């Protein structure tokens, strides 16, 4: 599964800290992280662009909703994700390939868990239909 690519948009205040260690060695997916000042900065255009540029799955990792330093950043990100998931369903890529995580900066092993989750998801779903078409 080494050609499987996951793009993660991670909040600088929480998930970025836990992502420092990178994915565990037994998870054979490429995870490309994009740092955001807050999960609330995530934009539908960025999420769709990630899929267009070859991501098989995308996740956004922000703070727990009640702990966001920008108050509503994580909840806004969740709502935007819900909208983009609907679009991904409509275009046939599949909204289940887009996942939101809420991560506390003090929870070190969480990123490893996210990496395993995403690898498991892609094992179940296979490569993005966009990639399948191009192949």
């Amino acid at each position, binding site marked *: 599964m080494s050609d499987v690519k996951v793009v993660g948009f991670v909040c600088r205040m929480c998930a970025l800290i836990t992502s420092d260690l990178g994915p565990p060695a037994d998870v054979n997916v490429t995870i490309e992280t994009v740092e955001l000042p807050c999960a609330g900065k995530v*934009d*539908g*255009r960025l999420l*769709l*662009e990630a*899929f*267009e540029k070859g991501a098989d799955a995308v996740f956004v990792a922000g703070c727990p909703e009640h702990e966001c330093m920008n108050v509503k950043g994580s909840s806004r990100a969740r709502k935007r994700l819900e909208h983009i998931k609907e*679009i991904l369903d*409509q*275009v*046939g*890529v599949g909204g289940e390939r887009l996942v939101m995580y809420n991560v506390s900066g003090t929870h070190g092993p969480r990123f490893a868990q996210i990496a395993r989750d995403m690898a498991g998801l892609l094992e179940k779903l296979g490569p993005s*239909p*966009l990639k399948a*078409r*191009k192949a």
Partner: protein
Amino acid sequence: MIVAEIKPIEEIADSIKAIKDAKKVLVAGCGGCVTVCLSGGQKETDIMASALRMKMEVDGQPVQIETATYERQCDPEYVVRFKEHLKDVDVVVSMACGVGVQFMAENYPEIIFVPGQNTKFAGAAVEHGIWEERCMLCGECVLAKTGGVCPIIRCSKSLLNGPCGGSQNGVCEVSKDTPCAWQLIYDRLKGQGRLDMMTEVLPAKDWSKNRDGGPRKIVREDVRL
């Protein structure tokens, strides 16, 4: 503002697929009302372009899709700016309201236009993400006589002398989410100490000023060039 709602992506993709040998598509955004109501501005145009590229790719009919957004699609000085983006374009998906789609199509009759939105109503944002209808564009405004609340669009029966018997506790019988316009008018006039206006009988409306008189047109000689 004109309030519009984005069409299902599948419907737009089907319209493109129905055009024989369409290879290049321009998704044209509008910087006017549809930007303000978050349905057809630059951001939504980029999202639509991205979604359509993916949809057409997944469906095995990939097309080249580009975007351009200008201030409005209902004024000639902005419509002309789209020209540079239309080279080799077979189809334009216009993210403007129905006015913009038609005006663009009038100006570029050789190009096929597909609407990206369903144009809904003239309304206002009562809160972020919620828009409500406020004007039916009837052509003869009665707001001066009704405390600034329009009975034509906000009363389900468009009654000029209300309320009707379906008004219960300030709510219209049509829906519990619809306030009775005539209750709103009463409350507004009462607050302004002008309740006597409720006794004025408004005459039957001249609907020839509305669509019943056919498509409308305004000519202003003072501003014509």
